């Protein structure tokens, strides 16, 4: 039997890696992937908890997270395509109009 702690630690580590990617990658798409990675880490924690406590609610929540991720991907990638079209670059550091 695998202790639940292992799963939680794994999810923490993945989450941290997601953060690092989120901060350190310059490619919009990769940053987006980092977000997905963090979502996955959280999902792992959810499933671990729900299985440990024998309650399926956590898994239901995972389903919701996945749905949201799908919607998010649809819109986000649309935005990415637009930015790539307009700014001819996927590097977020060139997309710097968001200031006074």
């Amino acid at each position, binding site marked *: 039997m695998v202790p639940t702690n292992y799963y939680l630690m794994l999810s923490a580590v993945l989450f941290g890696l997601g*953060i690092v990617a989120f*901060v350190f990658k*310059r490619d919009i798409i990769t*940053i987006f992937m980092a977000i997905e990675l963090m979502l996955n880490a959280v999902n792992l924690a959810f499933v671990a908890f729900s299985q440990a406590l024998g309650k399926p609610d956590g898994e239901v929540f995972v389903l919701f997270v996945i749905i949201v991720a799908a919607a998010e991907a649809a819109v986000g990638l649309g935005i990415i395509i637009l930015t790539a079209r307009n700014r001819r670059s996927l590097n977020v*550091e060139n997309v*710097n*109009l*968001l200031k*006074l």
Partner: protein
Amino acid sequence: MSTTPILEYLWIIPLLPLLGSAINGLLGWKWPNKLVHSVALGATGLSFACALEAVREFFANGQQPFRKEFFDWIVAGNFRAGFDLQLDQLTVVMLLVVTGVGFLIHIYSTGYMAHEEGYFRFFSYLNLFMFFMLILVLAANYVLLFVGWEGVGLCSYLLIGFYFLRKSASNAGNKAFIVNRIGDFGFMLGMFLLFRTFHTLDFNALFAQAGPLPSEAMGQFGTLTIACILLFVGATGKSAQLPLYVWLPDAMEGPTPVSALIHAATMVTAGVYMVARSHVLFMHAPTAMYIVAIVGCATAFFAATIGLVQSDIKKVLAYSTVSQLGYMFLGCGVGAFSAGIFHLMTHAFFKALLFLAAGSVIHAMGGEQDMWKMGGLASKIKVTFWCMLFATIAIAGFFPFAAFFSKDAILFAAFNAEQSGKVLYAVGLLAAILTSFYMFRLIWLTFFGKSRFDEHHVHVHESPLNMTIPLMILAFLSLTGGWFALPALWGGKNYFADFLSPILGSGEAAAGEAAHSLEINLSIVAVVAALAGLIVAWRMYRKDVKQGPSTGLHKLLYNKYYVDELYNAAVVSPLMWLSRNVLWKLVDVGVIDGTVNGIAHGTSAVGDTVRQTQSGNTRSYAVWVLVGALVVFVIIFWPVLKPTLFGAVR
């Protein structure tokens, strides 16, 4: 279930006008007049019918005062103000007067307002007024009564300012509202005091507690006395008594039906009703009673004197109204509550009639209100003339018409009052003479003599039926209305007093059987007084007179004792000065604007400094997000983290 469907659902009576008002007010703006006034009339008529049915059931129940708590409205601690309606003898009288006269005046208005702008607005307001007035008379506790009280105030404001394009009209509206505020303030203070003393504002509970209390001696200002005086201040505001009567004459800016309904028949009598309703308290406070009597008497005389010389037909009626209200208060003041209420009823009839007739006259004259520009109308508008004449006779107090009995009862009670009764009686009698004088002056100036307007421009015409029929009905009522209360010696029986006695107690207890001869004499005196007034007026205005230059006393009276100017100087202008120089220039500009602008500048300054962090580089933003996440995490998980971080150190 019960044999008293309407009583069980008493709220239907006020609700109907409210519905009518809502319908007309919300949807009526593009409806044809027919639809609008059919809605309004339907609402009022139905509610009148319901009132009749309710009264029938009331009698069927053997005149058991009916009371029902429909729902809690305000509940806070031990304070409860419910939507409780009650129906007892007093309410019955008021209910019938309000709905009945109101219905007639609605009918009249359909003719009078036919060519006015904002027809739907007018009827919406009128229905709304009916609603509040019914709430007022049906209320079973002071708070609900106060709702109706304020509501009718609002409606009167709206209706006085009906021609809001006229500066004078809107000013009059404001004036009425503001002056009433003073009275209402007193009223509220009175309510607070009562609640503080008795921990309830419900009529039954309150009076049940107040009843057994010892009545406070004359000249002693106990709690009850003060409470009663405060309530009476409210009454002076609403019922236009000295010193707060000033708004009523200006209120004549409103359409004439409004003057008839609100400022003669119903609303202004609310004060009297309230005093009568809380007579238990007043009975325990002779001082307050005395004050009421004095104020009433003084008002009666004072207003009558002003009424002598007014040239505007409606103004005359307005002052007459004030003085008649004074009579009612006099009645209440000397303990003859039933007499006061009785006079209220009769007055509702003939004063409404007077106003409506005056309105008809004005209608006929094409909007002219100055009596000096009238004359000789008797032959041209017969119906109006006769109705007006009846009303005048009634108000003047000739035997055997309405005011004769009511006014007579009041004067008789005053005469028997233990506190300086004779004086009150004398002044009242004087006022009676004046009343009959200015009324007949009005008649002569308006209807007799040569016409003082050029026939070519103004072509006089009798009003349509829907205006004249209410006149006739009211005329009939004001002729016969007095016979409800035939004093014993007129071979009759005072049904009215007996009817009200379970509620008000028999105020005429003072008059024993021995007093009959006295009463006869007094009534003869009264009739003589009325005759005197008539004769004087006839002598003065028989021949067509010109409006002479007003001088001396006449000038003083004509300018209403300069009371308005006095108030202006004493109250209004200091207030204006205060508002302009202190509240505006100091408080508003200095404090409030200063604070607001200061905050704004501070915000922008902070923003200027903080925005440096906003580099526009998404990765930096990502880092900021991270910082925020860190902080939130630490805050949330502090209990778990504390041992983790510092437990390890030790």
